[in-house]
Every structure is written in C-alpha cells, then in structure tokens.
C-alpha cells in the first residue's frame, strides 16, 4: 500500500507492506535509526515518536495507519548545529547515560511541555513513566525538565562529607 506522510517536516511517499510497523518504516525504510527498539511490544517506550501531536510507541503503530500523519522523531529535534532547549537541558543536567532510551525520552518530554509548560514533579513522572531507563534512575532527567521550566535551582547535588 502506498502511504504519504510528513516526518520532521519532510514529506515521504512510499509503498509499504501492511504488517510493517511505523518503527521499522522509520528506521529501515526512511533511514532514521534514531528512534530505538527496546522491546517491540509497546512496553518500554524506547521507540516513542510524536504522531499527530501525541507521543506514541512507534512499534505499536502500523505504517499504513500513519498515512497522512505528521510524525516528529529525534532526528528533527536539533535545529541546524544547535541542540533544542530540551536536548541542551538533558546535556547540562547529565540526563544521558547509555543513550538508548534518550530519543524516546526526549519525545515524551517534548509532548509534555507542549501540553503543559509548567508541569509539577508528579506530572513529569507521569509523562515519562512509559519510558524505561535502566541507567539514570530518572532523577537527572526530571531535573532537566525542571530546568526547562524555570526550576533550575531544584537540583540535588553530591555532598562531600
């Protein structure tokens, strides 16, 4: 089936098999491997992309469903040479370790801040609950989001005793 969709502002028209997931379509057909596969079963959130404004697991969407859709992925996040505000806040707050959950995490945060520019901690946790991270313990990610919403002072530290 032929589909036509917008990804990061670029329009693509492609023939796809009906069973192909949006995740594999993005990674393998469009050459956008920034979106990761952590489980392929909609459990871990590594493949989170923004689909018509909503954060979704791309492994749970068929490419044919995305006909006519507007998709945002991690590859569209930086603007030219500069990191987006979210990316810069993640970097500044040491919110990245192995990096495999990072693209999906950034997408979830992006959706959150669009809907709710001043989230409290519970709302931040709610928004990224579906994005598993095995490395960071989430705290520095939450601090990055606080930093983005004018709460950069609310950050823990390493105390020397």
């Amino acid at each position, binding site marked *: 089936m032929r589909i036509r969709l917008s990804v990061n502002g670029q329009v693509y028209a492609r023939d796809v098999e009906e069973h192909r997931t949006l995740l594999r379509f993005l990674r393998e057909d469009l050459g956008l491997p920034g979106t990761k596969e952590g489980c392929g079963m909609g459990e871990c959130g590594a493949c989170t992309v923004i689909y018509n404004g909503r954060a979704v697991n791309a492994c749970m969407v068929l490419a044919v469903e995305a006909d006519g859709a507007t998709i945002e992925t991690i590859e569209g996040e930086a603007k030219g040479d500069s990191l987006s505000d979210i990316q810069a806040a993640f970097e500044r707050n040491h919110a*990245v370790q192995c990096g495999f959950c990072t693209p999906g995490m950034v997408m979830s945060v992006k959706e959150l801040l669009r809907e709710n520019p001043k989230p409290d901690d519970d709302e931040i946790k709610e928004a990224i609950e579906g*994005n598993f991270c095995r490395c960071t313990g989430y705290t520095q990610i939450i601090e990055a989001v606080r930093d983005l919403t004018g709460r950069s002072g609310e950050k823990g530290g390493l105390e020397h*005793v």
Partner: protein
Amino acid sequence: MYDSLRPEELSQVGKSPECADDVEKLCGTATYVSDMELPGMLHAQVKKSPHARARITRIDASKALAMDGVRAVVTGEELDYRLGLYVVDKRILAKGEVRHHGEAVAAVAADTIEIARAAVEAIVVDYEPLPPVLHHMDALKADAPLVHPDLGGYSYMAAAFTPMPGTNIANHTKLRKGDVEKGFAESAWVVEREYSCPSVQHVPMETHVAIVQWGKSDRVTIWTSAQSPFTVRNLFCHAFGLPHNDVRVHIPYVGGGFGGKAGIGVEPLAAVLSRKAGGRPVKFRASREEEFSLLPCRSALTYRLKTGVSAEGKILAQEMTLYWDSGAYADYAVNVTRASGYSASGPYEIPAAKVDSYTIYTNKPYGTAYRGFGHVEFHWAIERHMELIASAIGMDPLEFRLRNALKPGSRTLTGEEITEHTGNVRKCIETAAKAVSYGGLTKEEAERERLTGWKIGKGVAALQKAPAMPSYTSTAVIVKMNEDGTVAVNLALTDYGQGTYTSIRQIAAERLGFPLDKVKVSFECDTDKDPYDWQTVASKGLLLSGNATILACEDLLKNAYEVAAQALKANPCDLGHDGDKVYLKHHPAKSVSFASMAVGLALSNGNGIGGPLIGVGRYIAQGLTFLDKETGEGSPALDWTFGAHGMVVEVHPETGEYRVLKIASVYDVGKAINPEIVRGQAIGGMLQGLGTAICEGYIYDKEGRLLNPSFTDNKIPTAKDLPLVIECYVVETPQIDGPYGARGVGEHSMISVAPALGNAIQQAVGAQLMHMPMRFEDVWRAIGRKEAVDNWITKSPVGSCRSAPELRNRE
C-alpha cells in the same frame, strides 16, 4: 598516582563537565550495532528449546533450507566448539542435549527477518524429555541428574577454580580463617539463618546484538554490543582456533550492559551462520524475550549464615555457606562464587571465618556477571543478618554494625590489613544514619504517622566491594597529538553510559595541563587499533585506565620536552608548558608550540626532529596474589570501595503496602573525578537496587519454563517508583594508587539497597523478611507471622529455603 593536591590546585578533576558523547546520543546520530546495516547483510533467528532438559533425537531442517531467501541453516550437531571464560562448558548451539528452556538448538540466516522467522518455524526438532534439575539445592542431592556429566573433561582456569566432576558443582571456593569452633564455643549468642534471592535480568535497553562477517582466509570481523572487545576476541579465537590477528572486534555505542555483556555473547552464533552463508555478514539481535531466556541472567542465591557473638556484641566467628544457582552454564557465575567467597562477610571484621561458596548447575538460563558481581545478593543476606542478630541480642543495629565494622588494623577474610588509606566504612555508615535521622522519628514523620496511620521505619545497611579480576589485570592507553596540538586518547575500555570517558578526559586534561576542549577520548573500540584492556567490568576501569592515562600523558610530555629542549637549546629540566606551548621557565618568551612539534618539528634550516608525538601508558594491578585454595588467604583487592545506604520507609501496618520516603547513599570514592557522574551512578544503581529489592525476579513453572520474560510480567522501576527524597554523599579518603586518589564506584550503588529497605520495613512493622524481592504480599505475610517467612517467588520445591531461626542464648 595520588598527589596530595588541594582542590584549588586542580583545574579539571573534581568538576562536572558534560559528557562529550551526549550530543550524538541526544540527536539520534550515535550509531549502535542494532542500528547498523552492511551491504549484503543477512538476518538471523534461532530455534529454541521448549524443554528445560531433553535429548535431541532428530533435527530436520530440510523445509527451512528449501525456502526462498534462506542462505544458511546451522544446527548444534555440525559444530564442535566450546565456549567459556573460566570453565569451558558451553556450545554455540545445543548438541545432543538441551540444558535449559529457551536454549538455541538451530539457527537460520536469511535475506529478511521475516523469512528467517518462518524458516525457524519450519525446522522440526524431536526431543526426548529428561527430568530436569531446577532448584540449586535439589541439584546437590546425591541422586540429582547431572547437568554436565562431562564436567571432568572440560578445561578450566585451574589457578582460581575447583570444579567437582560427578556432581553439579562447577566450582567450590573455600576460605578458612582462625578457629571457628572455638569462636562459637566462646560466643554468648549464636544466630543461624538462611536468606535467598532469585535470578534477575540485567535489562540493558539495547538487547544483545552482533554483526559478524566471516571473510576469506578465515578472517573474521565482528561488530558487537558488548563491554569488552579484547575478551570477545580472545574467547572467540580460543573457541574457533583462530589466530588473534585474524579476528577484529569493533564496539561502537552500546545501549547498556550492567555485566550482561561482559564476556562473549551472540557473536559466535552470527559467525557460524556467516561462514556457512559464504561470508555474507550476518546480524543477530536478541528479542526482549530472548534477552531473558537465551542470554544470561544474574544467579539466584541461597545463603546460610551462622554467627557467634560475644556478650559485648562483637562477632567472634562466622560460618558462611553460599549456594549460587549458575543455571546451565558456569560463565561468570564461577567467579561470582569466588569473589563472594572472599568478600562474603561484608565490611565487618570476622576473627574466625569459614566460607564455602558453591556454583551449582541447574537446567535454567545461565548466570553471569551483573552490577555488583554477587555483592548485591550476599549483602542482602549479610545486612539483614546483622539486623536480625542485633534485634535478637537486644542491641541497636547501628551500634552493632559500628562495633564490628572494619577499621585500620582490621584484617579482611583473606588476611589483608585495612589501613587508614583503604577507605572509611564507619564514616559511610554514620553519614547514612545521620542523613535519615536514624534513631527516631522527626517531628514531621511523627505527624505523618499520626495522620496516615502508616508506620515509618528506618534502616541502614553497609557495603563493600573490590574488583573481581585476575591478580595481573592490565590495561594500556595511548595519547596521540594531532597537528593542531589537540590530543586524542585511545583505549579499549568501553563507555556504555558510566561516564568513564568523560572522567578519563578530565584526568588527561588535568595531567597535560590542557583545557578540556583540547582533549578527546576516541569513541568506538577496535581491537586492531586500540591498546589492550582486559574487560570493562568490576568498577576497575577508572583506577587502571585512569592511571594508564596519567602515565601516557607523562610520556607524551616527556617526548615533547625532548624535542622542545633541542629546539630551544635547553635542558628539559628548565622547561615548562601550558596548553599551547613548551617554554623556557626563566625566559618564558622563548617557546615552541605543541602544534609545531605535533608531527615532528621543522628546524629553521628544514631539518626535522622528533616525529609524531604520542604517549603510551601501561598499568597493571599491583601486589595482588592468587588465593590459597584451602584457606583463601591472599590479596585479591585492587581497591575496596566502602559505602552505606540509609532508608526511610512507611508501611501500612495491615496490608504490607509500603512507600520509600527517602534514601541516602554514601560511598568512599577516594576522589570524585566528576561529581555529577558519580551522582548519576549513585542514583541509577540505587533505583536498579530498588528494582531488585521490590519487584524483579525470574519465575519458573514446574517444568522449568520461564513464565515472565517480558516487561509486563517482570516489571522494572519507572519514574513513578522513585523515592520521594534522594540524597547522595561521598567520603573522600584518597586511594594512594588511584588516579588523583579515586577508586571505582560503578557497581556499589546497587549493593545494600535491598537490605536497607528490609531493615527499615522491620523497624516499621516488625516484619522479618529474609527473601527478596519484598513484594507487598510478602510484607503482609511477614507482618502476620512476626517471624521470618518464605517468599513464594524463591520458594524451593523441597522447602530448602525455609528459614528456621535458631537463636540460642548460651547463658
């Protein structure tokens, strides 16, 4: 490597620059092996055993071979290789007999993953099921089936391990110190208990994946998501009998490891398929389910402890028996057994000790290294035991811990003397206790209890760990200067998120006296081009590679000074340098730039001197010894990192539900090279430790089938599982042979989180938990019983996990 520099004299170390590789990761341009495709690449899938133990009577792959797009089918029958880091006991594909549910028996490489999947389905395997041995305590019985009847014929590292042919014991580590019987006889109290924990999955977000191309003349190239490029190459060459020069291993970005990718994994499987497919590259990426059951997990443990204590609360003697469930293969589990054998008491002084630590084969997915290397599991036991002893003898648990904690002059189980430089465990314990206001409730906590009806309790648990590694573990680092005077650092230690490269970069910039932006640590390891490193494991990377980096920088500076001395017609001893140039100290205007010397200096007449500036640093662990196989005596520890966790928890007094209100972590890191990275390790490990404490664990049915190989059934912590308050502390007792005084801390944050929680729950509601994970229902049952109870998840089919608290007061 430690200069007693004051913090203000350090320009890079002790600061928290951002990680240099974060930009690639944040933009989605960091390439992981799971993202890679090569021209002509095939996709692999494996046929897996539905039985825990069975004889393979027939494999018919004819239908699979006949399918369009199938390029190779391989079965275990046609392969005659064995793999193993310490005990060489594992085949690439099962041959003759399958030893666990989910074990691979055949594999296919095909043009697409869909074809490979269909081909695997078309392979017919006939089995004759055999009775499996599923619980490690059952496996010790005289009439237990043998998982490896050929154990006596396997090769193994004899200096460190002792397999027992004719049994299911892959290794027995012994330690004997002092007169244990005398110690018990003199004790006022003897407390004997048993603790356990189940197998757990590492859960790297990127599952195991490798691409292998078996090229012409048996030259093999491997791209793999692994922790240790040289160990992958070494084990691969040993298995296939290939010269090391003919095998090349690349490791690009890696999506998490936690020990599960420490050794060799799926590389040999992809390799035999590539060879059979005429040298086309083959990619095998484990599914999430395969990550749970085809690839290794953390070993389950049953730990029996018997402790004799004097009337004053001093431990006089301790008998420690650890039964490790290695599953079907020994892999790293034998070394977990060994490391836990010499560390099994935790950071406490035990005058008379007897340790027996066993690695036991069962018909289950096999055990390997996992963050903490056994210490998470046995500290669960030790630190719960310390709590239960204290409550049994009527002493405050904190006081009991401090009374027995290691201090300068103490001797470890192996007889090593603790000095004032080793690290300060008492300060860690005291800091953790203070952070959670141990000893009572704060005004706010008391008010919270009154309002909610939930009970608040507090717990503290200490920890220790030294790297578990060969006594002669070594590494090398090369620092190369570029034409513009910047430098690149090459090493084969991998950074899969720990931040080691950023710390190494800071160390290099510090020692060179260069600004940070002039120093790069080269990403992507390559065994053909990087200098040797043993493995990226054991929290040894910062110390060994950090020291090698310092030595490499000194070597580069020495070489630069020699050239500059000629150019400036001066003695090297009269020279100084900054980030740009080498100059005469008494005439600073006379100088020669690093850039002009970087690839060889051209003198004014055109003569060239010097040559490309490089520095080489080699470092090997100092003063470590083999351990005596009968007594365990010797020096196994590169460095001891001590620490403690403090916990505040509120528990519903009837239902057993609980919430972690606060956790405080304290480690004696020697020197925090990058405090924010240390904090990231502290919090990341803490939450992984909470996962293991609260909810994670393998569940099997009676036939040995894993019932929960998914995130739905094997939950890991999410952002919502975070404690309300997290505080991170470090003590800095410099490690004299550590880079700028630093010692490793990557694993320690996961150790002793679980017992701190168990201790806090006990203080809150009296529940005596001896098995983890501690699910709400386990707490509920323990509240009702007011005594130690089994955990259904680790419950043994024969009740061998049943705890019989035998508290005797001899007076």
